[in-house]
């Protein structure tokens, strides 16, 4: 039976229609149900709990500002949504309210060739921008798994991670400045200093970094000025089979410390994901290939890439790596986005039946020294979960350098878990939430961070965000309450309701 849904007062609805136009205020059930989930694990059995009360599709920052002001006047929650491709729950409404879908804000406003920036609305996608920049010999080098479908507004909202960040940086480096509609409706531009195309400044607080990763709790990004860079003359991807994970781990560190400036990505996959297809009678994958794989990609001018490529090939060969060949390397690299989530390829029931499984990617940031231990603990947590509940499956781990502009130091420890969402119930969902919390605690205990690019918003992990941040979380709460006095922006997220509890307020005053 269809769940009865809440609605907002008719007068507020009328005001929204005056702001956005009749056609861009959606109250029908389909519009609302289709904006409840993002690309992270979703308790589909509780779908109705997460539908917004109304969906609006604004076109300008002024409209967004008016919507937020209205939300304050009517005490309505506001949840921003960009591409809806997030692997954390920033855009999942928890208390209904107004869902602000920014996809219509998709204009490329300016390309400043002299100062090497592009200014765009937040609904612009990275691939679209790079296509637009092609005639100028430029690219916008933010490349998440969702490269062709996520939006720059969402990349700001999550403080995302880019596959080629080792060479070009991540959104926090690539978004030079941006415009935010604050929780009160005021519009500010934040960057390093005041000029919209200034990359580094010592003027005032560096507010860009406060709002980067806001997850909708501090407002809505409505314009961004981003870095554009010279289209690389040369690209070299190379993939190697290695004997075992520890061998891959060691060579990963060696490559990272070679000091190769054109190294945009280096990674280690454990090969477990190939277990399923290998268990079937398929002639085209030979069993010997199901071993861990180390790969790298170089970008730059030809002389740099050719020289660095030879050097890294030699390093990998000396470490026992077996080059998988140009064809595999080029294909794997070209399909790096598309291979992100393929439910059938991941999903197996215990009886071997192929089932569609959502492939969740947990994305902790972990110091290099801790990776082997964390990987073992991660595997234990998920294997234990899957033993108790058939709807979960341990799939694989992947490791990538986490920082910008150079490899080494801390790494993105990606853990992939298959979830048979169709069969989720309250019991299995509670087990998942507990597992998320346990995984987060492991990351924290080993000096890491719960998430390197998706966000710490999901059920379970969010409970231990204060544990990760320590007293800094108290500062976060103060900032939240100061900027969002009525708690209208994405309420309930990141544990920030605590900012409005009387005890905290008393402490503050």
């Amino acid at each position, binding site marked *: 039976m269809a769940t009865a849904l809440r609605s907002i007062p008719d007068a507020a609805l009328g005001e929204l229609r005056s702001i956005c136009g009749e056609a861009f205020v959606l109250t029908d059930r389909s519009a609302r149900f289709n904006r409840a989930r993002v690309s992270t694990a979703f308790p589909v059995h509780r779908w109705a709990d997460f539908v917004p009360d109304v969906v609006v599709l604004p076109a300008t920052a002024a409209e967004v500002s008016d919507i937020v002001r209205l939300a304050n006047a009517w005490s309505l929650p506001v949840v921003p949504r960009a591409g809806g491709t997030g692997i954390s729950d920033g855009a999942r409404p928890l208390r209904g309210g107004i869902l602000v879908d920014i996809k219509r804000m998709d204009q490329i406003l300016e390309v400043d060739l002299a100062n090497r920036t592009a200014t765009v609305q937040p609904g612009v996608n990275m691939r679209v921008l790079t296509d637009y920049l092609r005639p100028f010999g430029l690219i916008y080098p933010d490349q998440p798994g*969702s490269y062709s479908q996520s939006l720059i507004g969402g990349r700001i909202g999550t403080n995302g991670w880019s596959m080629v960040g080792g060479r070009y940086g991540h959104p926090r480096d690539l978004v030079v400045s941006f415009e935010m509609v604050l929780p009160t409706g005021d519009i500010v531009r934040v960057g390093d200093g005041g000029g919209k195309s200034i990359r580094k400044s010592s003027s005032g607080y560096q507010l860009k970094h406060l709002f980067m990763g806001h997850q909708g709790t501090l407002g809505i990004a409505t314009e961004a000025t981003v870095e554009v860079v010279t289209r690389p003359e040369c690209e070299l991807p190379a993939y190697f089979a290695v004997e075992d994970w520890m061998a891959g781990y060691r060579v990963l560190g060696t490559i990272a410390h070679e000091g190769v400036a054109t190294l945009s990505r280096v990674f280690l996959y454990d090969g477990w994901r190939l277990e399923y297809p290998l268990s079937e009678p398929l002639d085209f994958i030979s069993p010997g290939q199901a071993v861990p794989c180390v790969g790298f990609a170089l970008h730059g001018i030809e002389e740099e890439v050719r020289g660095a490529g030879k050097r890294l090939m030699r390093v990998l060969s000396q470490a026992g790596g077996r080059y998988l060949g140009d064809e595999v390397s080029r294909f794997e690299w070209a399909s790096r986005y598309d291979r992100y989530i393929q439910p059938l390829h991941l999903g197996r029931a215990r009886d071997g039946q192929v089932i569609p499984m959502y492939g969740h990617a947990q994305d902790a940031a972990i110091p290099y020294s801790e990776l082997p231990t964390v990987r073992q603990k991660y595997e234990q947590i998920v294997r234990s979960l899957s033993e108790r509940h058939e709807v979960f499956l341990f799939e694989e781990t992947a490791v990538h350098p986490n920082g910008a502009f150079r490899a080494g130091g801390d790494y993105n420890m990606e853990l992939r878990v298959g979830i048979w969402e169709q069969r989720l119930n309250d019991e299995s969902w509670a087990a998942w939430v507990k597992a998320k919390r346990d995984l987060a605690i492991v990351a924290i205990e080993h000096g890491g961070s719960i998430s390197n690019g998706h966000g710490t918003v999901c059920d379970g992990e969010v409970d231990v965000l204060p544990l990760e941040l320590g007293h800094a979380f108290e500062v976060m709460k103060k900032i939240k309450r100061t900027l969002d006095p009525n708690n209208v922006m994405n309420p309930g997220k990141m544990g920030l309701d605590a900012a409005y509890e009387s005890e905290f307020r008393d402490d503050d005053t």
Partner: protein
Amino acid sequence: MATKPSNPEPSASSEAEREVLEKWSAAANVCFSSGHKYCQPMCPVMQVTRNENHSPTAFNANVVAMERGELGIEDVASDYVHCTQCGGCEIRCPNTLFTGDMYRFRLRTVDIVKAMRALAVESGIHQPAWEVWNRATDERKNEPVLGDLEVSQERVASWADGLDLPIGGETILFCDCEAAFYRTSLPRSVAAILSCAGVDFGLMREQWCCGGPAAEMGYMEQARRFAQHNVDDWRASGAKRILVLDPHDYIAFTEDYPRFFGNEFDFEIVLVVELVAELIRNGKLELTQPVERVVTYHDACRLNKRKGIYEAPREILRAIPGLTFRDVDRVTQWAYCSGGGAGLPIERPDLTAEISRRRVEKAAELEIDTLVSACVWSERYLAAAASEREDAIDVVDLMELVAQAAGLSSDPVS
């Protein structure tokens, strides 16, 4: 556009709804489980409206929500208007691209859209313009492609006036409604080309609409009835082979008709574009007259994305002397469309116009003077979009160019 109530009274699912959901549950859940939305940048409608309800993701998610009793057909019927059934979403989906062969799986969003439109009609939910269009088609036996001007069975073969084409025979040329009444230069070109190359063919005794558009808009009973008529006509005239000059008909004859008639449907369906490519290749059709144009090719969605036919049109273009051909690869064109398919221009002409405007803009970036299509349903809207521009891009059908290069007249009848 039909409006949707905010909080409808929950209604018991109809038997028809249960059948549709059962059939499409697995496919919809594969999409819903992945949630990666690679399809959305491909989708010509979503590119324009930027409304997630108009995305392939939503078309699949709706099925999941209906299965769980949260949405009913009355909630989602208008979502499914927003699709040209181009198939870009299916072919771009990583589930199709990377694991489809292994698991014999291909995303089937177009079929889901068709099924949900059919369910809407069966449930008494009609989109106003589609209802009028299909009623008119039912009355006149051909689509009302001339607006207020009457189309009728009496004039369905008027395009062939003066060509002296026989009726019946083993090979029948099926002439699409848009071609028969609106762009008669296309069937005249095709007839001239086939005759020149020595291909014997006849026309139907009484040609009704193929029924494909009705099937695309959800009027399945009508589609089936029209199909039955056409098949009966083919059998009555001893036809074994049907030549098809329009990709939409090609879909109807290779997908809808086999579903309707099963193994009894034993006609050979030949796409004219592929036949002409073969005739040129075999030297049976010589292209000797230079065509001094700078062209690009608009990959017809139903050929490129739905049927994987992209080589033959290019082979033909490369065989035309004098032509400068500035190609855009077929994969890039997965994201292109004219917006002219699956009834979108009937119910949402504003969206079709914008989709076509963007397509022509892409062509104009190549500094061409002619946009060549192999889909007659795209040409009206692309031409309208081109006519709004100052650079005067000509929109022509591939067969019109071939006729010109073969030195054949394709003057349309008045």
